[in-house]
């Protein structure tokens, strides 16, 4: 599965990987706000921001072509609206939609591919996001692959039993079969959850996850946030002053 790639990327050892999750989160938020509110001289600014992100990807030792491709998942959605804007005679808005959505996705990709998800969620918890919500997200991500694999098996079984789709308008029997398959998947997921909880209790779960990394917000992290702020906001001010 393709998101396993992200797990591998996020476990690198570069300077960017070693920064505290909070520092990287703040930097990305600043980037997203500076990009999202940009109005003038958008083309040179977006090129400059693309350069910053590309430099970050290279510094983190990530495969740049693969990263640029991955961020392109937003483009199909954006393309529809960009086409509508073009047809409505607003080429600049179309360019802004494509540029902003792509660069935003790329910035988030840099964040998650230099920070393992448990660490990122831990950072968010220390920034005040409700722990309960983050624990649900944590479990969701951990069991995504397990449940997805079961769904794949069920899909294979369903296809083996009922053959390919008939080209009728509405096949009630097959619709019901898919519904029952999901009902069974639901029941199995429920049973999984109970087993998981008992296993956790057996190992002494106290109500919150402990992370092993034990990173603290150090001087390097403060410097990183300051540098990101200066570069991102400074770039926008410079570009808008000159052009």
């Amino acid at each position, binding site marked *: 599965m393709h998101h396993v790639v992200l797990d591998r990327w996020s476990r690198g050892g570069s300077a960017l990987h070693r920064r505290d999750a909070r520092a990287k989160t703040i930097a990305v938020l*600043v980037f*997203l*706000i500076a*990009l*999202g*509110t940009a*109005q*003038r001289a958008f083309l040179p600014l977006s090129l400059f921001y693309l350069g910053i992100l590309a430099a970050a990807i290279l510094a983190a030792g990530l495969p740049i072509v693969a990263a640029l491709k991955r*961020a392109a*998942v*937003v483009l199909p*959605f*954006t393309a529809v609206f960009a086409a*509508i804007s073009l*047809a409505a005679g*607003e080429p600049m*808005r179309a360019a*802004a*939609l494509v540029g*902003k*959505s792509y660069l*935003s*996705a790329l910035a*988030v*990709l840099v964040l*998650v591919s230099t920070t393992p*998800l448990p660490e990122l969620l831990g950072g968010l918890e220390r920034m*005040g996001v*409700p722990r*309960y*919500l983050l*624990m*649900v*997200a944590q*479990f*969701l991500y951990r*069991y995504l692959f*397990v449940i*997805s694999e*079961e*769904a*794949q098996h069920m899909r294979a079984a369903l296809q083996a039993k009922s053959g390919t789709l*008939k*080209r*009728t308008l509405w*096949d009630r029997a097959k*619709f*019901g079969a898919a*519904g*029952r398959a*999901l*009902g069974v998947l639901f029941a199995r997921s*429920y049973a*999984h*959850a*109970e087993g*998981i*909880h008992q296993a956790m209790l057996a190992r002494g779960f106290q109500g919150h996850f402990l992370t092993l990394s034990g990173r603290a917000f150090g001087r390097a992290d403060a410097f990183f946030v300051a540098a990101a702020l200066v570069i991102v906001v400074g770039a926008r001010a410079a570009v*808008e*002053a000159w052009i």
Partner: protein
Amino acid sequence: MHIPDGFLATPVWATLDVTAAPVVGYLARRAQRGLEQSKVPLLGVMGAFVFAAQMINFPVGMGTSGHLVGAALLAYTLGPAAAGVVLTAILAVQALVFQDGGILALGANVINMAIVGMLAGYLPYSLWGAGRWRRQAIFLGGFLSLLTSAVLALSELLLSGVAMPAAVLRISLGLFVISAVLEGAITLAIIQALASINPDFLRQPRSDGARTLGWIGVAAIFLAVAGVAIASAYPDGIQKLADATGISSQAKTLLRTPLADYQLGTMHSVWVRKAGAGLAGLSLIYGALLLGGKLLARKRGA
């Protein structure tokens, strides 16, 4: 429909983020109180289930197929508060890991799908889920949850000044209705299967009181949907009506402000102040939320 970053005007996403944060905090607290400790893994695994459920295709005919979205289904099985938390977690993981939906736009997506859409889906079930109209209520819930989310997303995009001609608007509304019917049918099929496996999977709908409130909710949803439909079909009609009643000037400035933001070409350093004010505002809100949460937690602890 997950809105990516870069689509919504700053006032729109900022307002929705600020609205979503306390609501999600409240839902998390409520879900935590309402469920025993063992439900934490359950909520996570149910989120994984909704992700995985998208792999099972429901044949619609003509070689096309649809899949479950799941807001109403989660509300029926976990209750509205827990469903809101699970859906928010799903949206967060989708935005972070799959770049599906934006980070600044997360508040908008949470409001559309995890909160308003989910509640719209739960409403008919809580009203008529126990009685003779149970099947219809389940179908209607799936239908309403998807349609409400989609219409909200569409209106946020329109409010942000994303250009959409009337024809495009009509086509997308038509597509929304079709996918909403599909979601209703899929939800019903799964709920029936669940009920035959183990009826305890479903939460018993409340049959006591609060009917009037429910009716008002349903009416509001229909009014909103009908309003957007009419507005898209007769843009001139709305304009004329507004002229006649004299609210035209206010409505125009309201509608144009986010749009105008994009075209302010002559102001040089205004954005510095604006961005500064925005950042300061955001950090103030963040501080207020953090403080409020801490105080609330202390009060509860005492």
